């Protein structure tokens, strides 16, 4: 396994060009082309803002700051996470030709889909920065240095899950359909549209088991980290959780790679 893992940097060039291809091919033929990378998160944000300020305006403590900005801080990373997983769950089957007919390092495929979505995330960040400036968000350099760390932790976590899902889906096609629903549940079990303080407050009606669930959810800590760094004023207090999650994500990535490697030989036959 480690021998194969060490090979991974050798595929740098391949991964690079495949990511570039994904991005180019994605919007080929559409009128706005690459601008969709900006418009998509913007439109998503408009939808959520509409829902939570016009349709369901209550339940938001205005002292915290603008709700749209809060939503955006969680939605953007979530979109990266969920689209990466959905894409990679199907990627080995979609790329079946490569796996069956060419000597091709299969792990490159889920990695490419996670990275391509990372690039979209980074484009979305540009929109987020515009919003941050517009709303005069309380940004601090001491907090912002943590931002790349959060992204890195999320990258590791996503890669680990993507490897596991892509390898398992080859054998169990049902995963694709299960995943879509699990992700919907996962989204609501993550403090993205509501602040974590609402859940953890003693006055909240949330049952204890749900609180535990939400606090055990790894993406909770990513979302909270993004929100603390970009949205809330005050120092970044969640760093211990973040580092613990980072360590766990590294283990998950290694486990994912191990599982992928174990199942690798079966791909060419099962795809």
């Amino acid at each position, binding site marked *: 396994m480690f021998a194969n893992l060490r090979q991974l940097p050798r595929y740098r*060039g*391949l991964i690079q*060009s*495949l990511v570039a*291809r994904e991005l*180019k*091919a994605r919007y*080929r*033929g559409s009128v706005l082309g690459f601008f969709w990378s900006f418009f998509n998160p913007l439109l998503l944000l408009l939808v959520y803002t509409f829902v939570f300020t016009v349709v369901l305006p209550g339940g938001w403590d205005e002292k915290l700051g603008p709700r749209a900005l809060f939503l955006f801080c969680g939605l953007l990373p979530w979109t990266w996470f969920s689209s990466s997983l959905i894409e990679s769950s199907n990627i080995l089957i979609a*790329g079946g*030709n*490569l*796996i*069956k*007919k*060419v*000597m*091709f390092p299969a792990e490159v495929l889920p990695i490419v889909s996670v990275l391509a979505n990372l690039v979209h995330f980074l484009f979305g960040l540009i929109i987020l920065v515009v919003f941050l400036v517009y709303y005069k968000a309380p940004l601090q350099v001491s907090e912002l240095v943590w931002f790349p760390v959060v992204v890195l932790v999320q990258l590791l976590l996503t890669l680990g899950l993507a490897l596991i899902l892509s390898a398992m889906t080859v*054998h*169990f096609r*049902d*995963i694709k359909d299960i995943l879509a629903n699990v992700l919907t549940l996962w989204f609501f079990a993550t403090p993205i549209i509501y602040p974590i303080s609402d859940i953890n407050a003693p006055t909240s009606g949330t049952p204890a088991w749900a609180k535990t669930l939400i606090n055990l959810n790894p993406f909770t800590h990513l979302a909270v980290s993004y929100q603390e760094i970009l949205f809330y004023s005050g120092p970044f207090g969640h760093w211990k959780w973040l580092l613990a999650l980072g360590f766990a994500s590294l283990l998950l990535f290694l486990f994912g790679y191990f599982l992928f490697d*174990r199942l690798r*030989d079966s791909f*060419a*036959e099962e795809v």
Partner: protein
Amino acid sequence: MNAIEVANVTKIYRRYARKKQFATLKSALLKGSLIQDLQPDETFPALQGVSFSVPAGTTYGIIGRNGSGKSTALKLVAGITKPTTGTVKVEGRISALIELGAGFHPEISGRENVFINGIMLGLTKREVAKRFDEIVEFAELKDFIDAPVKTYSSGMYMRLGFAVAIHVDPDVLLVDEVLAVGDEGFTHKCLDKFGEFKRRGKTILLVTHSLGLVERFCDEALWLDHGKVRGEGDPKRVIDAYLTDVERSEERELAATEKRVLAEPGRAEAERAEGRGQRAESGGQRAEGGGQRAEGGGQRAEDGERERGAVEGRWGSREVEITEVTLTSNDGQATHIFQSGERMSVHLKVRAHAVTDDFVFGIGLYNAEGVTCYGTNTHLEELQPEEIREEGEVTFTIDSLDLVEGTYKLDVAVHKRDGYPYDYHRLLYTFRVKSRTQDVGIYRPHHTWTFSPTIKLRRQ
């Protein structure tokens, strides 16, 4: 030194039942016993104990019928799949022409696809850039290289895939039946490229159904049959052994088909009921002259012909019955395979249930397209029937079966002079004609070539 060494390799494909897969997922999730539960329901051995080695710098051909394990062997050498047991060793960079253009993305241009495909096949970006012009020129796609690949014709697509794969400059080239992709000109170019590879001392492993290619190109050949090695060594010898085996199984197949067709009485009866008015002169779709000479049968026979079309079947009143039909060759052995120019005899066993003086025996030969190659009957040949009683045998012998290679069908019939059928067997018998010469047409007249002394030719 051997470039490829395959030692005692067995490859077993597994099949899982769908239902089981769901159960497996459930138990995997509940008990975490994934590895143990991944036991297949059914296995299929694609290769069994196959060994061969290819010395560096030689061209090696693998032949065999569909499903014999050729492609599996190639995939194992390419490293796409792993052997269940045994070892596969390959020295040097491999390029596999298994599926051309695998990994092309339809939405992006040919240019970008060349780069990505080249990188996938193990080149660096700079190496692709260096060979880019050569690749495009080889693929003959200069004018289209910036168009998205989805707009390419399938020929263009394959040519580009071939061009990239061949310019990877491998030490070992694996080719799986890909020469059928281009037009004549491109195929020649590919063959030239293979020749160049050979001259430069590269190793080529070729999987193909084109035996001529193996005979011409390969230094050695391997014959796989049902996952086992049946022969190895000199291509000519291996190919001959293979062809003999194919012939034998074809013979078995034809015999089996014949039995099946004859064992369908229901169908034959139905044909008979339907063919009340079918009074056909035997000898097939008669040539005009034949038609006019046949008295009485004329119009009715033509109607019947149209009605029946080319459907095989059997009908007639059976007052005189054809009970058995056998084909024999020179040596008197029953067979369905003949060499062109060989003697063929058609033996009919007949039984007359009543004594009669009105009977005609007929024969018709058709090729696979349904064209009448020859048809005749005893009436047309002015043989006056006098009497038939009880059992007898009729033999129709063609001294020299001068037909070109192909599959032919046979009509045999016995009927009244006016066409009223006693027993008509329409297209029920099949035989195959083999020929060393790849000449075309239907009939091969006896012929000779003569040249004046200034024109010299030599037999190959």
